[in-house]
């Protein structure tokens, strides 16, 4: 059913990478996410827009296992899955870059990159040398200026911390990448690097969900944008079908101008 609904967005016959259907989650009496349905295809960037408190972060935290939904279904590659913890989500190759970055400030870049997935020696002890070497490899690709592998990440700049969080999401062969405000703390140059990375990952066939407040950036980076307001989905549109003003009015008024026509 969901497949036919979204047939216009998909390459014909392809099963969506992720289908979220009728997702609901309430905190006390507040409906943080109220019956939202979304699809994400491989090689696609889906933008998620809305005011603060619209439910974007809650929705993606359901997909990344930080929250458990009250009702709804999630299908990955057409198969219904249960995501009840961050561990589950990682098992389906879903990686998340949180807005807060979710780094342990007292640990170094290597420890953060492998947190929860440490490489161990046959004796069960941590293989620090191997992990550090791997970290150096991936950081050389993502942020060649990054040299401070063994300092606590609290000592790093905002951009460097961001690249640690991105490295962690990219290193483990993610198929689905969720990025919550990945450029909020970054300068112009670093933002450009993230944009290039998104393009590259997209070419590799990842499905990416991107959250941002910067409508123009979203129009450039995304294939489709979904707008949320008060926990509900206002609409999902291909970026070439809408103008920035259309998107803004969806965000502010909570109405889809194209649907009204």
């Amino acid at each position: 059913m969901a497949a036919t609904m979204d047939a216009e967005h998909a390459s014909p016959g392809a099963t969506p990478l992720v289908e979220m259907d009728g997702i609901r989650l309430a905190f006390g009496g507040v409906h943080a996410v109220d019956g939202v349905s979304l699809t994400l295809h491989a090689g696609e960037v889906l933008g998620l827009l809305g005011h603060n408190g619209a439910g974007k972060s809650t929705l993606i935290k359901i997909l990344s296992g930080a929250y458990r939904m009250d009702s709804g279904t999630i299908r990955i590659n057409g198969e219904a899955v249960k995501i009840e913890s961050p561990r589950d989500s990682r098992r389906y190759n879903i990686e998340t870059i949180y807005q807060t970055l979710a780094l342990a400030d007292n640990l170094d870049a290597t420890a953060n990159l492998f947190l929860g997935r440490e490489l161990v020696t046959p004796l069960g002890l941590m293989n620090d040398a191997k992990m550090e070497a791997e970290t150096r490899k991936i950081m050389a690709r993502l942020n060649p200026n990054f040299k401070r592998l063994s300092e606590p990440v609290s000592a790093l700049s905002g951009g460097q911390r961001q690249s640690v969080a991105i490295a962690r999401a990219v290193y483990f062969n993610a198929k689905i990448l969720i990025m919550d405000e990945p450029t909020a703390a970054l300068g112009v140059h670093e933002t450009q690097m993230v944009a290039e990375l998104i393009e590259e990952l997209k070419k590799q066939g990842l499905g990416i969900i991107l959250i941002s407040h910067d409508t123009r950036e979203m129009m450039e980076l995304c294939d489709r944008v979904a707008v949320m307001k008060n926990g509900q989905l206002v609409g999902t549109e291909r970026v070439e079908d809408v103008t920035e003003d259309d998107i803004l009015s969806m965000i502010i008024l909570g109405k889809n101008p194209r649907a009204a026509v």
Partner: protein
Amino acid sequence: MTDTAAPAGATPKAKKSLFKALEIDTRLLGMIGAFVVLCLVFNVVTDGRFLTPRNIFNLTIQTVSVAIMATGMVFVIVTRNIDLSVGSLLAACSAVMAMTQTWLLPDVLGLGLGHPIIWLVAIVVGLVVGTAIGAFQGFLVGYLSIPAFIVTLGGLLVWRNVAWYLTAGQTIGPLDATFMKFGGINGTLGTDASWAVAAVAAVAAVAVIFMARRSKLAHGFPVKPLWAEGLLALVAAGAIVGFIAILNAYDVPIGRLRRIFEARGQEIPEGFSMGYGLPVSVLVLIAIAVAMTVIARRTRLGRYIFATGGNPDAAELSGINTRLLTVKVFAIMGALCALSAVVASARLANHSNDIGTLDELRVIAAAVIGGTALSGGIGTIYGAILGALIMQSLQSGMAMVGVDAPLQNIVVGSVLVLAVLIDIQYRKRTGGK
């Protein structure tokens, strides 16, 4: 090299680069410095009685019980919790072990007093009880979300009185003879075995330093200059051998020797003397320190403990089961309380109701003086042990000098607050947390 040119400016700079080459934790260096100054001052004030083999031996065995628990308290505090019940937990374990070895095994199970297996069974029973109580408290904290402060404040009252109830308030003793060898002066290795331990430990220390270097080189990481590594290895080996030499230099008093020989029905040879050597309790502490350091630095458990302390949300989002982790941390604390109870009750030769009273404060103070941050995520095992040693030195040094008891406690309390103040300032300056 250019000392003559700029003597004032060159020295601090040279010193700085020396420390940099050695990559020594400056905080550790500061603590060792403070400890050395403390010892020297007491030695001067007591006319050289403080730094004698005898007093150093006594200091060491007095420190063991608190130091063992302090290593566990590091994990507890690093995960942003606290354990106020360790003194009471120690008493509960002590009571159960005392009853096991003086009543349950010899009378109820009919093994008879002095059976060779009694000491071992007693310790195992103590460990099981300590671990179970610790895990239970950890469950209350981790899964039922009761603050650790409250759970262990309750535990402080509950477990000591469980011990009281079980023993009907009686002092239980004397304990099993083998068991009492864990107490300190009653169980030492003697000089020969102590030298052997020193040799093994020194070789192991040097091997660890150079194996780490080789592993770093193999992966192409920067290493310290070879001379710096060699100097570190030399200092470590020297410290180990020196420490054992001091313990070996403390001779068993002649009266005690005579009794030992009389017990064997022999005459004491003319001019015979014997050093105590390394106490078994200190060996236990060293083993625990090594094990806990390995857990902290080289295992996932340790990594998760520090990650959770640094950022609990991040740990959870990384798939770490922080609730179960809390149970594990408190279970380890409980097991260490049991081992501490072995040492403490063996030292006293019996179990009494007030065993371990106020130990919770000493243990927390040792961990905090040793650099464990109450805000979580930061702390070292060796720091906590050094902290325990500093506290004990302060206490017994003042007792030797003849400082009044109330003044002793006033000083110890003030030192605790001062140490934390210095630590906060140090971390601000170095930009750490």
